[in-house]
């Protein structure tokens, strides 16, 4: 595996995820929009843990903060902790079936949303909660397709043999 190949695949997928995050959707769908950036980042942290680690997560999180107009560091904190958990548990998550993985991803997405919510609450900008966690659910449902797509992509560019 070379660093260059990594750069050629990981960065474009993250950029596409960031764009999907901003893509204009009808109002009701916007409340369901899964957190594409976190999903893609979790995949790469699982597949290439020695390349995509907490530092990458922090930088991506900062970008996410700017695109969302959130407090700087809010999403960064969430992503760092999510990727940290993946770094500790990646060998276990890798051998899960797709459904089990989707459950694990659901938990990770919830952790990130809770952290973001916690910071929003601290500064007194807590959003209404009735639909707040739907994106995590949508993200978990999307995971199998995203996983297969990204795996095909990674194999095509032969980034790593394991997983």
């Amino acid at each position: 595996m070379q660093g260059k190949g990594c750069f050629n695949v990981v960065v474009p997928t993250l950029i596409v995820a960031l764009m999907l995050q901003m893509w204009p959707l009808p109002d009701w769908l916007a409340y369901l929009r899964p957190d594409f950036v976190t999903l893609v980042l979790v995949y790469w942290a699982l597949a290439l843990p020695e390349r995509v680690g907490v530092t990458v997560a922090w930088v991506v999180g900062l970008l996410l903060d700017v695109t969302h107009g959130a407090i700087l560091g809010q999403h960064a904190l969430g992503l760092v902790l999510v990727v940290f958990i993946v770094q500790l548990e990646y060998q276990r998550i890798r051998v899960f079936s797709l459904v089990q993985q989707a459950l694990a991803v659901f938990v990770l997405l919830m952790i990130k949303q809770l952290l973001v919510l916690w910071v929003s609450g601290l500064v007194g900008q807590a959003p209404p909660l009735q639909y707040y966690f739907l994106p995590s659910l949508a993200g978990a449902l999307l995971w199998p397709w995203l996983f297969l797509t990204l795996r095909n992509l990674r194999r095509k560019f032969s980034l790593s043999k394991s997983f």
Partner: protein
Amino acid sequence: MQQSLFLRGPSVILRTLLLVVISIVVMVADHRWQHLQTLRGSIETYFVYPLRYVINLPGSFIEWGDEVFSSHQVLLQEKRKLEEQKLRAQVSLQKLSVLEKENERLRKMLSAQTKIGEMVLVAEILSIDLDPYKQQVVLNKGRSNEVYIGQAIIDAWGVMGQVVHLGSHSATALLISDPSHAIPVQVNRSGLRSTAFGMGSSQQLELRYIPHNADIEIGDLIVSSGLGGRFPPNYPVGRIISIERPAGESFATVLAEPVAHLDRSREVLLVWHNPPVKDVLLNQPAEPASIEGAE
């Protein structure tokens, strides 16, 4: 590169801790002291704006196609409609300029100075989704157009919001309907002052701290009062839609509907104005009530 089975444990934990601490410091710095506007601005300019530009392309392309391929007949119709509108606008403008002169004269008699007429710039709202729980929009004008943080934006119907983040070619604006936004307002009919808070919905604003016996009615127009110096005075903000006076509470519950088309406008105006607060304070020996009542 040799692939190791295990990641180096302590270094991951250490790095995570470090990044968590940095995140917290950055959050505090950003929220409490607004120290990081330049960092945010440069990220927005160099990384986020290009992406936003690309996302906005299909929309602008459709608009362009619409213009190019619309028929002669449709264009003619549109032209006639616009000419009629222009005529109407000019007629009302004639009256307005007379009123403006009169107002100026009256204010001179009261020895108070105001500047009517602000500089404006047309900006376009990019079709981009931000956080659905925040009422924000992205504009295609930024620091290079001398936009500044805190600048008011209005549309053809009324006040929309203010600029909160700035890139060199784009700006993020907070709408008056965001729960964290408040705008000082005044009831146009009675001169009653209040503050309109956003409620997270583009259909409603809440006017707080209005006593039960205040002179306010359903249908009243509320305009920006210009107090606080952020917003230019006398732009329409909303119309009162409901007043409740619950017994046992010290204030009435007053709701207003924004007159600006918060969720539909595509073109908005950025307004430059000089806060007149200083002038009024300097040249004003008379009682302040007479100026408030000059409407």
